[in-house]
């Protein structure tokens, strides 16, 4: 399963939600599919995308929030899963693209390549809904069920360790930041 195909499959579902992504392939691929003002790409501060999503979710409890995380990033902030579970934002869906690799720095294998199970870790941390998926239809089903369930969900999507050739895009970091803040502050949740 390719991550980009996963993103394309849920792209239509990402219209009226706040989307927070990690840096690297996820950010570059989502921008290549088509940037929207409700997408924020955390282009560094590895590990903090899920914490940033929690901050948005707590500040605007009626706004749906989707965090697009990765195995390398989440492994840097496993403690954050316990905080996420503790405050259980029901408006947050946490997607983890697990390619078992730190792809953007040359493909070094992460601990998920030797058996660490991020969905099991999330479940043990107290996340009420967790699932691991291996196919596009299963991913789309899991994503839509999570949105419909209205509860904190971690979806681990096992994807191939392939990505775009380049990671720098023509969207400036601060342009993205102010655009996203305006979206959140000027557009009340549906």
């Amino acid at each position, binding site marked *: 399963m390719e991550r980009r195909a996963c993103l394309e499959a849920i792209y239509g579902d990402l219209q009226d939600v706040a989307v927070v992504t990690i840096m690297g392939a996820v950010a570059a691929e989502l921008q290549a599919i088509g940037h929207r003002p409700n997408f924020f790409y955390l282009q560094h501060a590895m590990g903090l995308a899920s914490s940033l999503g929690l901050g948005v979710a*707590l500040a605007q409890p009626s706004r749906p929030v989707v965090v697009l995380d990765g195995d390398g990033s989440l492994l840097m902030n496993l403690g*954050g899963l316990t905080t996420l579970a503790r405050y259980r934002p029901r408006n947050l869906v946490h997607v983890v693209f697990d390619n078992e690799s730190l792809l953007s720095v040359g493909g070094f294998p992460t601990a998920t390549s030797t058996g660490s199970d991020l969905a099991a870790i999330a479940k043990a941390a107290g996340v009420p809904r967790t699932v691991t998926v291996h196919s596009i239809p299963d991913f789309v089903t899991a994503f839509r069920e999570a949105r419909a369930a209205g509860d904190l969900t971690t979806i681990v999507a096992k994807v191939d360790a392939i990505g775009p050739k380049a990671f720098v895009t023509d969207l400036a970091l601060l342009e993205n930041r102010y655009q996203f803040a305006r979206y959140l502050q000027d557009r009340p949740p549906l």
Partner: protein
Amino acid sequence: MPVSERSSAVIFTSLKDAGVRIMSALPETWLVHLIRMAEEDPDVNLVRLAKEEEGVGISMGAHLAGVRSAMLMQNHGFLASVNGIVSGAQLYRIPLLMLVSARGEFGERDPWQTEGGGVTVPVLDALRIPTRRVDDVTSVPRAIAESMTLAYSASRPVALLLGRSLMWEEA
């Protein structure tokens, strides 16, 4: 435990007056009253962290969503948060109010706090974080109001160092 309840109450009220609605914190002896006050106040959302750097992410998200927040932490928690501060809050120009208990300075009895006490201010300086030290409770309301004002006008992290004479009631 001689942590100053009075200073804690003034700090807490000043944070609320500055519009703070989300406080993220990791327990530390000097902050126990402050954290309890945040927990008990229905107008404040207290987020108890596993590690302080998470608080940078939470404050970034809250700010982008239009809500004011503050981080309450020990100086060792600040040291543990440095990458998030630099490659998150500074890179993205986020107003971030950090209240940092200045452990490990003159009067410190815990040996394990002393290394951090010696490097906190140099690290804050190296990161170009505007820092103000508060040792006297009467200067707290103005210090917090002005810190929040600068954080927003500069769109940057700002630190208030909470000194021993403010937080601890014995020499």
